[in-house]
């Protein structure tokens, strides 16, 4: 699904990755670990195709679409969670009609435990609630490849448990997840761990 070869990543004059290779196939849950500043975010942005000028090497994605979740939320504070997610669906070419879409969004918001907050403007939500709206995209995305940068940040403990379950489901149904986290990932599913910071 994703094939990286001979990646050399340099940022701010520092060599972060040297001759890095990675191959992610369906069903894999990849956890990228590393200390602060070891290049996790930079790597994920490169994988997503958002940053192209700070690395050399080849990155090939066979998946047509991917879901990227970075440090920035991509939510509009002046829209409600419902409206934010509706836009997400519309811009990701889900053409199954408005009713189906609304039902999906309700389900996604329920899955991230935001019932009762569907119609509050996002900038009136707490940090963790905003993060949850952002994570609700996981339940709406048909993308087989997920690139998640610290998805657990700001999420409370019960939230993290639910999230891990979702990630495992995604890989079990044939998707792939590449993620970073500073918290331990508690699951029985096999995890491919990659440690950065030895460049």
């Amino acid at each position, binding site marked *: 699904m994703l094939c990286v070869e001979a990646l050399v990543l340099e940022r701010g004059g520092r060599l972060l990755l040297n001759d890095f290779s990675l191959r992610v196939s369906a069903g894999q849950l990849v956890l990228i670990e590393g200390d602060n500043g070891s290049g996790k975010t930079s790597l994920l942005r490169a994988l*997503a*195709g*958002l*940053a*192209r*000028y700070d690395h050399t090497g080849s990155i090939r994605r066979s998946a*047509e*679409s*991917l879901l*990227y979740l*970075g*440090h*920035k*939320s*991509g*939510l*509009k*504070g*002046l*829209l409600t969670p419902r*409206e934010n997610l509706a*836009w*997400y669906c*519309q*811009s*990701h*070419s*889900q*053409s199954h009609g408005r009713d189906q879409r609304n039902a999906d969004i309700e389900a996604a918001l329920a899955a991230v435990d935001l019932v009762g907050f569907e119609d509050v*403007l996002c900038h009136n939500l707490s940090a963790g609630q905003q993060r949850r709206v952002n994570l609700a995209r996981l339940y709406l995305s048909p993308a087989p490849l997920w690139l998640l940068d610290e998805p657990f940040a700001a999420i409370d403990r019960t939230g993290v448990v639910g999230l891990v379950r979702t990630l495992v489901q995604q890989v079990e149904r044939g998707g792939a997840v590449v993620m970073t986290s500073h918290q331990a990932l508690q699951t029985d599913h096999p995890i491919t761990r990659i440690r950065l910071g030895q460049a």
Partner: protein
Amino acid sequence: MSGAPLLPFLSACLRRQLLLAFRRPLEIANPLLFFLLVVMLFPLGIGPDPRQLAEFAPGILWIVALLATLLAAESLFRVDFEDGTLEQLLLTPQPLYLSCLSYVLAHWLLTGLPLTLVAPLFAVMLQLPPPALPALMLSLLLGTAVLSLVGSIGAALTVGLKRGGLLISLLIIPFYVPVLIFGSGAVQFAALGNSAQPQLLVLGGMLSLAIALAPFAIAAGLRISVDAG
């Protein structure tokens, strides 16, 4: 996946932009109020003599409209860049051309169009002769659309800069010059009783060119800005 049909996407984009704007109604009224306030500054700075004002009305109205558009353009992509919306936009399977077009269209609907509609009021306040009103409105209608398109290119190129500031005015004002010349020229001609058709035709030509090309430049600018962010 072939992507959703394009027209629904364009309209969804546009509706979203407008919805966002209506959540901050002041933002909508703002170009108008800015227009009115700055027009008021001219008699205060120059003097209230009606004859003088009438003579300068075309230039003043056009310059202030230009500034109002420029200032609104400046912040067109800023919030979206900072909150990560642009990042996500680049990752959608939709053609970026359309998204960019919808940004510009929304911008024009919220600044250029209202400015055009209220311009006659200000024109009367500045004693512009009534026969020049149609030319004023037509030239603003076409001209502000060009200003929005060109201004958005500047906005896209500068949005990611941490050390850029209001760089956009430097980049864009030179491109605004021809629009200003033909726009205020049209009104001046009409005020003197001549036909403003030639100038309006030129403005129309500029507009078609800008519609065809500007969204590509905007899209490229956004890609570069997100990449460097």
